[in-house]
């Protein structure tokens, strides 16, 4: 467990009532957003019979497992077992919950108490996330580290690239771009992200 925030998704890619699988430091998590907009990152495994909670469904402020409908409140505590509707589940039945926060249009997760806040991303807007079947080499992309993100330009637009490592030398890049750029320039920058992915994967092949 490492004491830092890992970027796992762009905020806009996780709408209310949506759950998705994410990986943080090799740990498989279910990331979800409630009806009221609150986010949570949990162990991706229902305590009942081991089904992935990322296949579950969100109703209101609770996430339910798709297998038997066991539902869990924001705290991770089980609040309903449909096969036994009269049972009030004990506090002990709960899903391990991890720290999650939103900052700069990005969702961040930490498995241990981080020493610092996520990097400041003022003036930037979320562009896109892309998964690389290869490691990411910022220098090859002409980017340099500054304030906790890899920064530089893509297709002439100032960008910040956040790296979410995945197992087996894969990774996700979450890319933010200059908020003042024109829509056309942002389209070019988005294509630039795609080029970056292709180059990284070709370099590996």
């Amino acid at each position, binding site marked *: 467990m490492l004491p830092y925030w890992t970027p796992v998704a762009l905020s806009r890619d996780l709408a209310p009532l949506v759950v998705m699988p994410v990986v943080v430091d090799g740990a498989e998590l279910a990331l979800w957003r409630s009806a009221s907009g609150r986010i949570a990152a949990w162990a991706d495994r229902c305590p009942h019979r081991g089904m992935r909670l990322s296949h579950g469904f969100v109703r209101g402020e609770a996430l339910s497992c798709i297998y038997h409908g066991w539902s869990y409140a924001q705290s991770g505590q089980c609040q309903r077992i449909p096969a036994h509707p009269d*049972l009030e589940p*004990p506090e002990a*039945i709960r899903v391990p919950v991890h720290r999650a926060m939103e900052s700069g249009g990005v969702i961040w997760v930490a498995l241990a108490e981080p020493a610092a806040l996520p990097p400041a991303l003022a003036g930037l807007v979320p562009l896109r996330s892309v998964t690389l079947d290869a490691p990411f080499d910022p220098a090859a992309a002409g980017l340099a580290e500054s304030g906790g993100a890899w920064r530089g330009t893509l297709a002439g637009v100032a960008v910040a690239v956040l790296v979410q490592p995945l197992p087996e030398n894969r990774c996700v890049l979450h890319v933010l771009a200059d908020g003042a750029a024109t829509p056309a320039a942002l389209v070019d920058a988005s294509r630039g992200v795609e080029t970056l992915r292709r180059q990284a994967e070709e370099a590996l092949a």
Partner: protein
Amino acid sequence: MPVERFIIRGDLAAATFLPWVARHLLRLGLRGETQRSDALCVEMLVEGPADLIDAMEMGVSLGPIEAWVETIERLPLNRCGSA
């Protein structure tokens, strides 16, 4: 809250058995206490909601791989602990 005496019989000599049982009690948020144990029989009290006492029976009937639970006899007790 209902209280039951569990009389667990089987091949229970494995050192992992009693700690496993204690852990499973905690996982279900039940109160419990082992009153007697040997290689063939474990007697314990279990206190909590009826559905969770049922769940305790489910879990313990499988238990750790080193142990074999043949039967679990359940005796409901009143709150004073008498049968």
